């Protein structure tokens, strides 16, 4: 029984934690252009209204209420007369809280910590009468009475990704943060100028979009660019750029994914594997697809030969805490042949497989993994198309 899985699970940035207890630039939160400081009456309303629910729900409702007032302030602070309509007498629910110009809005509060996933109530997607047209992610900083509008998600785009949604429990979906690709400014555009019905059915995939649809463009990694949903059609492939891997592995304690990769690379150094300092990469975990594997991908350019080339360096390892099973096989092909083919044999003690291929900038590589039970996991082709300028 050979099942083929074409994975669309997102890759995650491999930003290593250097100096784990240092405060870094991303720790402080300076005021953003979409940060709203709530008035005292608004905060008082939030404190009062959340007491109408049971104690177990109060904090969540409190944050929801703060987010709601913050979004309202932001929407109504412009010159186009937007008005957010909702029921002031009821504690805000986790779901559709109100409407603007006929758009039903679901405001999702984000606490100080986000884990790259956004939980949304299923009813906001599935309820035929009360679905949400737009989702708005708003960071709430309760200590500072502040709300920052971060990003949004259109219903039509979410519907187009429907089959990738993972139920978090019976009432909610877990949506990857990367799906929220609509900027606050774009939200204002829709609220001001669009007819809500335009968002009610799944987005059409327009053929005239970027030619690199349905591929993993690692060239973008080198220029610090992310693939967004707008560029890859109906795809969940999102790559965040990594900073260079540290040359000295001494500080690593093997805890984060980046550190785990560094451990592997250290083991490969005696075999002559050299990763240049300008290499960039990401990793993807396949556990949510029921496969206990993790794939790391690194890329860099190679300009020494007659033609500029790019390198794709792959490390296949087990999910954290697991062992790589004998019979696991990593293969890389180009258009014509198999370029790399390594399989873990039963008497090998290694816990990873690796492959390294070079190609000219117009070449693409297909990566697949065979599991001991015969199933295959494969990815859309890896290509190298760096941006101009």
């Amino acid at each position, binding site marked *: 029984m050979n099942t083929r899985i074409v994975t669309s699970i997102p890759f995650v940035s491999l930003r290593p934690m250097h100096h784990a207890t240092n405060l870094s630039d991303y720790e402080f939160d300076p005021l953003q252009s979409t940060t709203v400081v709530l008035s005292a009456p608004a905060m008082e309303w939030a404190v009062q209204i959340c007491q109408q629910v049971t104690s177990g729900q109060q904090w969540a409702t409190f944050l929801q209420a703060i987010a709601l007032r913050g979004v309202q302030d932001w929407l109504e602070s412009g010159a186009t007369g937007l008005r957010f309509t909702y029921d002031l007498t009821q504690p805000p629910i986790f779901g559709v809280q109100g409407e603007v110009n006929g758009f039903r809005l679901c405001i999702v509060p984000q606490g100080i910590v986000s884990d*790259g996933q956004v939980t949304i109530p299923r009813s906001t997607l599935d309820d035929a009468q009360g679905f949400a047209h737009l989702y708005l992610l708003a960071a709430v900083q309760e200590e500072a009475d502040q709300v920052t509008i971060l990003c949004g998600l259109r219903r039509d785009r979410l519907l187009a990704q429907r089959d990738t949604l993972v139920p978090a429990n019976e009432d909610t979906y877990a949506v990857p943060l990367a799906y929220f690709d609509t900027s606050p400014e774009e939200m204002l555009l829709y609220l001001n100028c669009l007819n809500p019905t335009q968002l009610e059915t799944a987005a059409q995939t327009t053929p005239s979009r970027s030619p690199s649809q349905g591929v993993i463009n690692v060239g973008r990694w080198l220029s610090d660019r992310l693939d967004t949903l707008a560029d890859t059609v109906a795809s969940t492939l999102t790559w965040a750029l990594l900073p260079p891997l540290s040359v000295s592995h001494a500080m690593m304690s093997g805890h984060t994914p980046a550190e785990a990769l560094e451990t592997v690379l250290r083991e490969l150094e005696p075999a002559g594997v050299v990763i240049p300092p300008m290499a960039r990469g990401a990793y993807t975990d396949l556990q949510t697809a029921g496969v206990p594997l993790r794939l790391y991908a690194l890329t860099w350019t190679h300009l020494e030969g007659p033609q500029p080339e790019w390198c794709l360096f792959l490390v296949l390892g087990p999910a954290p805490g697991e062992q790589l099973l004998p019979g696991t096989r990593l293969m890389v092909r180009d258009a014509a042949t198999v370029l790399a083919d390594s399989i873990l044999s039963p008497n090998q003690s290694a816990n990873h497989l690796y492959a390294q291929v070079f190609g000219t900038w117009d070449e693409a590589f297909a990566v697949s993994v065979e599991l001991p039970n015969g199933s295959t996991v494969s990815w859309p082709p890896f290509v190298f198309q760096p941006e101009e300028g």
Partner: protein
Amino acid sequence: MDNIFRYWQLVRLTSAGQPQTLEMATVKPWIEATYADVLFDLEGADSKLQKALLAAWQEQTEGYELAQMSLRCWISHQIRNSCVSLARRYGDRHGFEPADLFPLVLDDDGHTHSTYRPLSLKILDSFDPTKASLSTWCGRLTKSHPALTRLLLEKGIYLASDWAILNDTNLDQVQRILQDYHLCSDFEVDQAVGLLERYQAIYQRDRILQRQAGQSGRCPEPTPEQLKQMMPSLSPKTVKAQLKQLASQLRQYRIHVRSGNPQIYQTQDDGELERIVGAANATLDSEDDAATFLHRYREALEQLLGQTIAQTIAANLAHLDSRNPPQDQAYIQGLHLRLCEGVAMAKIASRIGLSSQVQVTRLLNLKRLRSDVRHQLIPSLAAAVRQDVAEMVSADRLRDLDATLETLLTEQVDTLMADAAAEAQAPKPRLVKSLFAHRLCTEIHAFMTGQAP
């Protein structure tokens, strides 16, 4: 060893609040004599020396008071450097200097007081070498010092406290973060989840009660009573330490996520008006469509732009007039200085009664001004050429229209003709303006001279 003087030179403040360095006369010869061998090491001398000094102080061996003073000296340099680096990063935009921060944290005068414990001693008292280096610990306690965070927040920079972090993280998130990112064992994860649950039940409840009583601001440290309620079987000190450890793990993870999603979390710098909106590139479906759109709309745009800008400014002025205190005058002055006279943001603040560049940016809110104008133009442009935009246009098409409109507004205006006459009388450098800025200035002048409706 470089900078060895830090171990006997104390940075403290004069009575006028100025930083000065004071050489501790007895410490210097003692260090040079006692630790001569360490001083000549090239690598790792700092950590070796610090380790030795800490041991001397903690074990109260001979010269322990000098060891303590030496560490206090070194720490005072760290504290000063933290202030300087914060000011370098945020000071220009948010309107503060290192001198504003020093009095809050550089409070060691080199004497030993019976009741007052300066920050340097608090750092030493709480330092755990198994958790971090001394320099890291200094940085952390300095930057999260309550008075400092209060000042930073006033200036528009927020730093979340450990307790706020623990409040906002739900149990599923903690589980995922500890398992997948920190690779904790199942046992560790269960412990942490249980602890967080107990913490939230008590602390969140009390926080809402405090809020009701009118208390707001930075989350206070949990009291021994609260800690006891959370975990009766452990000492409050232990519970607090475990909570802080969990907060630290979450804090690290938070940095990881934010740095991996800069498009969502990065600071928006909208100080410059003349910039194409990045997200929507003007990729229209075909060349024909682009030409058609531009042709049909360009003339209408000429007529409508002025009045749309005027409406937008009027609406903003009304909004700002109702603030307490009113900010409408500051707004129009600020717009004029920025867009008509090209004055830099940083210089505008004091001229309109504000104290930092960030305040000016937020008041003028140029990005919103521009998008509000565009969003009002799109429907009225369509009406002018008898198309109902709302019915026919999809969301993606709307984005393209918005982007093309932005392109039109950004086109440089040929101001040669208009300015020639003016220049003949009073030559000054001609500002190259976009169509948008050019028309905006005209409208602003109208508001300032009272000609606007």
